[in-house]
């Protein structure tokens, strides 16, 4: 079993490296900006979903409030940039740290809650964040923040004429989130999380250790999502509370992991690779009709996939075996 586990981990790492290399080469073939845009979004959501998966999949603490961290990342970066001239790269780090600290602060009371109580608490806290930013004059309130564009610059991480830097950054983010997940799977934390999921009561007796590992999961997860948020802000170059902190982001982060396979290493990537292009294409095709057809198609697919494959699309590929935390 241990040997198998080690072998599987090596195999995963190799597959990941190959996929990343292939992804890195796609811009050579794909010149169409619209397709590039879809690729960037896909990578970004894969990364976000991967990060969400750490807390909600592996650790079993289902959060539907991650939009809070996404928005905090975006806002920290842009407030620092537009008000104090701090370069987005530092803002990105700052946003990550702020989010991680808040996640830990919230984790303290939140982890006492179970099931629906926890889920609703996460939704509610993100709504509070949204409302506060909506009313915070200094942060632009409803007007949002328009990022001043001064031409292409790596220093300011803004590019008008090409999408490639965004593409590579999204790729790095996605790989980073994947690698962190991969690494955590075999760590002490990963062990505690599996224990918690397998037998919550027994793990309860371990108390403090488990609690700390959950806090760790929350912090890592929030940090990565915040980095994603600040990337998104630079990419779109305009943010307002609704468009970076809305409830839909919490769902969009969870969906790829759920559809692909929650609590698995590959689920979020697979889910995002299918879901995001599908969302974009249904909108292109039916969105202009004004009759809600895109919603019907999209919703039906979600219902069908969640019903037919409760373990996610990944279960189509794997033989019945024990993979990581996905038991």
């Amino acid at each position: 079993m241990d040997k198998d586990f080690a072998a599987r981990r090596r195999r995963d790492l190799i597959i990941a490296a190959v996929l990343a290399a292939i992804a890195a080469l796609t811009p050579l073939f794909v010149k169409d900006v619209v397709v590039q845009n879809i690729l960037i979004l896909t990578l970004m959501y894969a990364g976000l979903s991967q990060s969400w998966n750490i807390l909600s999949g592996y650790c079993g603490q289902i959060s539907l409030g991650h939009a809070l961290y996404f928005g905090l990342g975006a806002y920290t970066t842009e407030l620092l940039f537009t008000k104090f001239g701090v370069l987005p790269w530092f803002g990105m780090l700052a946003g990550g740290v702020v989010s991680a600290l808040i996640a830990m602060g919230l984790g303290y009371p939140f982890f006492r809650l179970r099931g629906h109580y926890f889920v609703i608490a996460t939704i509610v806290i993100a709504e509070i964040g949204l409302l506060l930013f909506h009313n915070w004059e200094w942060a632009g309130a409803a007007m949002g923040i328009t990022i001043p564009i001064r031409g292409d610059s790596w220093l300011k991480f803004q590019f008008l004429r090409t999408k490639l830097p965004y593409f590579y950054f999204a790729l790095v983010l996605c790989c980073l989130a994947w690698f962190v997940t991969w690494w955590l799977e075999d760590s002490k934390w990963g062990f505690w999380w599996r224990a918690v999921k397998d037998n919550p009561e027994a793990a309860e007796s371990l108390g403090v250790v488990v609690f700390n590992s959950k806090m760790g999961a929350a912090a890592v997860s929030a940090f990565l999502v915040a980095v994603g948020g600040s990337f998104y802000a630079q990419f779109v170059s305009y943010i307002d509370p609704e468009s970076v902190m809305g409830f839909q982001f919490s769902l969009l982060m969870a969906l790829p992991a759920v559809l692909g396979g929650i609590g698995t290493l590959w689920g979020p990537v697979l889910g995002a690779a299918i879901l995001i292009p599908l969302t974009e294409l249904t909108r292109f095709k039916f969105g202009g009709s004004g009759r809600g057809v895109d919603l019907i198609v999209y919703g039906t697919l979600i219902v069908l996939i969640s019903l037919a494959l409760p373990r996610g699309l990944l279960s189509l590929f794997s033989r019945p075996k024990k993979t990581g935390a996905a038991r």
Partner: protein
Amino acid sequence: MTITRRDVLLGATATAALVPLAARAQTSEVVIGVIYPFSGGSAQQGVDAQKAYETALEVINKDTDFDLPLGKGEGLPGLGGAKIRLVFADHQADPQKGRAEAERLITQEKVCAIIGTYQSAVAVTVSQICERYQVPFVSADNSSPSLHRRGLKYYFRAAPHDEMYSGAMFDFFDAMKKKGTKIETLSLFHEDTIFGTDSGNAQAKIAGERGYKIVTDIKYRANSPSLSAEVQQLKSANADVLMPSSYTTDGILLVKTMAELGYKPNAIVAQDAGFSEKALYDAVGDKLEGVISRGTFSLDLAQKRPMVGKINDMFKTRSGKDFNDLTSRQFMGLIILADAISRAKSTDGEKIRDALAATDLPGEQTIMPWKRVKFDEMGQNNDADPVLLQYVGGRFVTIFPPQAAIAEAIWPMK
């Protein structure tokens, strides 16, 4: 959607490459992108806009006889009678999606201009993309004043923005005061998205400058399940004028809640939006006798300019509604844009931009009560005079400014 593998080169070369591509393109058809919310909470505005643009398309492409630019003959004379085709895209009120759709329309559908967007937040990102690809963006119905002040070269707005609207309201108050009406205190009531915030700020600013006292300034959450607490506050403040800036949903709820809580202000002077929507008057019109709303359009104009009535009928057969403040602006936006394309004799973005910048259209050749259409260096038309309309006996009559008015204001409202 078919993803063409056509090699559109990236970046700087992309724009350069687009020029010969567009120039080579068949001039028998000119493609314009239309970006609106077609799903979600404001889908109705998107669907109405679609009807307004199709009406404009009929005027341009078919052989009609109106004293509008392109109102006669078929297609665009400057391009050998080329027809216009519209491509509609859904931004779902999300700035990121608006951006992606604008980019798709420009690179894949090869549109030579874009018009939109209802929500101001989306106009921000769409206009940025247009600027980058050097494709003109006509902001048909966005009213946020911050939009044209960003120094964009390819941004154009023929209609007034919220400061102009609010200015007209206060001009009206000043005029009423001269006639001896008591107007001293105001209650502002605005929603918390860009539209409401901008409008509220503009009103507060002008009120300060002209010495009106704001007794309550309530910002509320858009699409709230209940407005009782808010209306309670309005009622206890009991200002001379209530000035709401609300979309349709909240407008309906506001009026119903006011009736329930027995609050009847002396006058309501509304910042358009919901208060120009048929849905609102269908729902609560009986409680709104005498409400005043700003606007840029009035069906009264049909008395002076018969074509307004005829075009309105064309729109009505499509949508079952009269033109309102939004749909009339959308109609006019496309006419102005198409006229510029015809004058540019080209589908090249820069040439259309120059033609738009050179637009000088007398007000008589529009369906609006405007003086004329002429853009300043920021792309704003400062001659688009807003009007104030009063809802009397189930229809709107123009009461201000005097040159456009056909009736005296009824004050206080019933």
